[in-house]
């Protein structure tokens, strides 16, 4: 086992991690640990754009962007955070342009902007052109540009290093009101080098988690195979709460049966949704902005069309994304990649045929709670000095119960940058926290338990059953019964997980071993999501309870906080402690959410 020492260690090399690294790397000795190569990260799969009120093509301002973000999130957004994000969006886009990002341009040579779901002029009056973009590969361009700038600044990467543990020590401390508590402090991380199978401990004054999402708890998902929620899972196991995990976004337009993302930019450029009767059904659900309503509303509308028998196809189980009224040259210029996906994977020609689509699990609104500096919270009032999180792993919360399209690319840039600066500044004055004795012991035990397991269950079979029950019971429509079914299935799967075995016993590139470890995180997170969903007896944003179809501000205008706690029990599940956290309000009173 090797021990390394850095001022700042960043875990994850997607957009948030690399944006942080560009800042931190110029201020403090920084290492980036990633389980992939940086350019493989799923930021690269984002397509449509990144919103900022540049007002390059029509009137716009950051206050409207803030309002749209708050309303889009069904008022569960922390408004101070949304305001920071919308204000800093403008510099975030300009930063990227200066770093070299090849945005599409207006005839005047400025950054071009286009429409996106839920982004409106003057508090909902009409769609606004706010999304800065580079064809339909904006995420690819962001990921490449950030990596290029990491190369420029000689950022030190440890590629294919899987971080499996966060080293936290607890100190006795006393609050201002005199009560005693345990203050967590971060000492570093433990990682596994895929190539050699060796463990490496990284001692650091500051650690930034930028590990992305957990879409692989679902079967139909736009997420990469590698999005297994490792960062959320590690933090949770170390006693850090997870916030708002019941809110998961289903992107309306996944390729039917496959889940591959077709950007909302298609609808931004004029494509519309139709049911089997050829009807543009969004006119009924969102009369003002129709197909450009926020994702939760569009996804539910689609699922409802299918449920009521107006689905298309032999099994009537999808709807259609119609681009046939758009000029082929326009499609080629603005949407080249996604139309190629339709051709490659479904054999459909979008110029002349509508494309079969259905909602696909896309984005975790919840995650590791942070404040607007990116500092991770151990409870509502207490930060963990030196520990930061940014991007999908984190919950600031700028997305509330439903994220608007493009706001994730924005989130990673704004809060990635903030975390990078703040972590480096913290490291300048802080001392190292002493590593615990035998810091890798728990990781060794975890890996040995998997490697030496001699059960009869296969990892892939448990994972497939988990994804199946989550798709069936925890998708866009939920009831107490469906959620309880998912929860009992997960309990049974956790039991089966105790009886696994893997076949690869070697040290080199043992992905069999790591898939088993990743499944452990997925099972933990699925349980947290499900318990949180069962507990929240209202419908809000991405969490829709058919047995409680209305938003209930009197009882539920608050964030969910779930803690791992062996002494507690929530919704019949031992080891989980339930808490809540107030929503931060600044200027917007909750209103009914209509589009």
């Amino acid at each position, binding site marked *: 086992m090797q021990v390394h020492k850095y001022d700042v260690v960043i875990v994850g090399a997607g957009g948030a991690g690399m944006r942080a690294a560009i800042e931190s790397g110029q201020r403090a000795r920084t290492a980036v640990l990633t389980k*992939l*190569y940086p*350019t*493989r990260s*799923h930021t*690269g*799969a984002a397509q449509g754009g990144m919103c900022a009120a540049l007002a390059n093509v029509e009137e716009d301002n950051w206050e409207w962007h803030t309002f749209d973000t708050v309303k889009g999130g069904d008022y569960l957004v922390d408004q101070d955070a949304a305001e920071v994000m919308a204000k800093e969006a403008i510099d975030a*886009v300009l930063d990227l*342009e*200066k*770093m*070299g990002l*090849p*945005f599409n*341009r*207006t*005839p005047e*040579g400025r950054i071009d902007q286009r*429409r996106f779901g839920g982004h409106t002029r003057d508090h909902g009056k009409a769609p606004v052109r706010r999304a800065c973009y580079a064809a339909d590969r904006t995420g*690819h*361009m962001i990921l490449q540009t950030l990596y290029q700038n990491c*190369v*420029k600044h000689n950022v030190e990467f440890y590629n294919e290093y899987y971080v499996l543990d966060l080293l936290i020590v607890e100190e006795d401390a006393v609050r201002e009101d005199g009560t005693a508590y345990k203050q967590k402090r971060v000492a570093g991380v433990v990682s596994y080098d895929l*190539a050699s199978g060796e463990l490496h401990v990284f001692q650091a004054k500051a650690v930034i988690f930028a590990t992305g999402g957990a879409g692989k708890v679902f079967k139909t998902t736009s997420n*990469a*195979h590698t999005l297994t929620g490792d960062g959320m899972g590690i933090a949770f196991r170390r006693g850090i709460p997870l916030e708002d995990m019941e809110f998961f976004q289903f992107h309306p337009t996944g390729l039917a049966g*496959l889940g591959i*993302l077709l950007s909302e930019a298609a609808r*931004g*450029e*004029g494509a519309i949704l*139709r049911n*089997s*009767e*050829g009807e*543009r059904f969004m*006119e009924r659900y969102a009369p003002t902005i129709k197909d450009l309503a926020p994702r939760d509303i569009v996804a539910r509308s689609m699922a409802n069309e299918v449920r009521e028998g107006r689905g*298309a*196809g*032999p099994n009537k189980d999808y709807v*259609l994304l*119609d681009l046939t*009224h*758009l*000029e082929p040259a*326009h499609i080629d*210029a603005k949407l080249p*990649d996604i139309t190629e996906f339709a051709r490659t*994977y479904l054999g459909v020609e979008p110029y002349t*045929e*509508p494309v079969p689509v259905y909602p696909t699990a896309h984005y975790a609104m919840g995650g590791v709670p942070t404040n607007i500096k990116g500092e991770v919270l151990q409870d509502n009032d207490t930060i963990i000095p030196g520990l930061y999180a940014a991007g999908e792993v984190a919950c600031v919360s700028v997305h509330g119960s439903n994220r608007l399209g493009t706001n994730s690319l924005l989130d990673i840039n704004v809060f990635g940058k903030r975390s990078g600066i703040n972590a480096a500044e913290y490291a300048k004055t802080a001392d190292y926290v002493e590593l615990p004795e035998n810091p890798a012991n728990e990781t060794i035990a975890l890996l040995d338990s998997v490697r030496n397991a001699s059960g009869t269950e*296969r990892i*892939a*079979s448990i994972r497939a059953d988990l994804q199946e029950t989550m798709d069936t019971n925890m998708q866009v429509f939920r009831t107490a019964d469906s959620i309880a079914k998912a929860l009992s299935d997960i309990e049974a799967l956790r039991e089966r997980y105790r009886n696994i075995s893997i*076949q*690869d016993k*070697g040290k080199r*590139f043992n*992905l*069999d071993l790591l898939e088993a470890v990743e499944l452990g995180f997925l099972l933990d997170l699925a349980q947290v999501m499900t318990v949180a969903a069962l507990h929240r007896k209202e419908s809000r944003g991405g969490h829709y309870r058919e047995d409680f179809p209305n938003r209930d501000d009197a009882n539920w205008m608050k964030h969910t906080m779930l803690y791992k706690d062996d002494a507690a029990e929530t919704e019949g599940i031992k080891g989980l402690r339930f808490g809540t956290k107030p929503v931060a309000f600044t200027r917007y009173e909750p209103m009914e959410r209509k589009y």
Partner: protein
Amino acid sequence: MSASTVEPASKVELPASVGGGGEIPTFDITLRVRRYNPEVSEESHWDEYQLTMYGTDRVLDALHKVKWELDGSLSFRRSCAHGVCGSDAMRINGRNRLACKTLLKDLDTSKPITVEPIKGLPVEKDLIVDMEPFFQSYREIMPFLISKGHAPTKERLQSAEDRERFDDTTKCILCAACTSSCPVFWTDGQYFGPAAIVNAHRFIFDSRDDAGDMRLEILNDKEGVWRCRTVFNCTEACPRGIQVTKAISEVKQAILARQF
């Protein structure tokens, strides 16, 4: 270009063809995979697997079926599974492709489908190669915008035409399918290779960049663009459809135009 100006109809007659052909067909394949694990043996060998697959399945699905149901030790990289992350470039029936973008039904399934690691980079295990030499070449061409003078307060202006000039080479996902399909690279690992040149092209032809001459000088080196024999393997291999050979020849012409 503006968005569609005509509001689409609220209701249309859908053509009868919409909805596709019902059940997805299944078929049987033989997958032949070149296996190598130096922990076990210094020699590589072929393993064959008989699999029943669906019409929508890709080579990556077949590899997953082996790994998840038959042999967990089979090792390969993958992530996004739809052709944008560049993890799973491999040699499929002798041609470099992404496993996640190659539909089985588009291959001749009457014969075994062979899968091998990409060539010219050291094999680590099964289909996994050491990517470090590849990224080293990439880093050497200074793959980042270098601009002299003060940065403007707002964005730099760039005309749509100037932006279009280098659009093709911005699509690169660094999968190495091109570089590892190049016969020159196979015999001379020092050659920068197509991917590095593509990424140099992306900046050389960006009107905002001021370091084109430096990059051209680097690529004028004996291991630079002049090693290219215009075999077009790279263009054929590129899963993003980049006109790689064309980009290389544009770099060659730029060097000649500047007369080093």
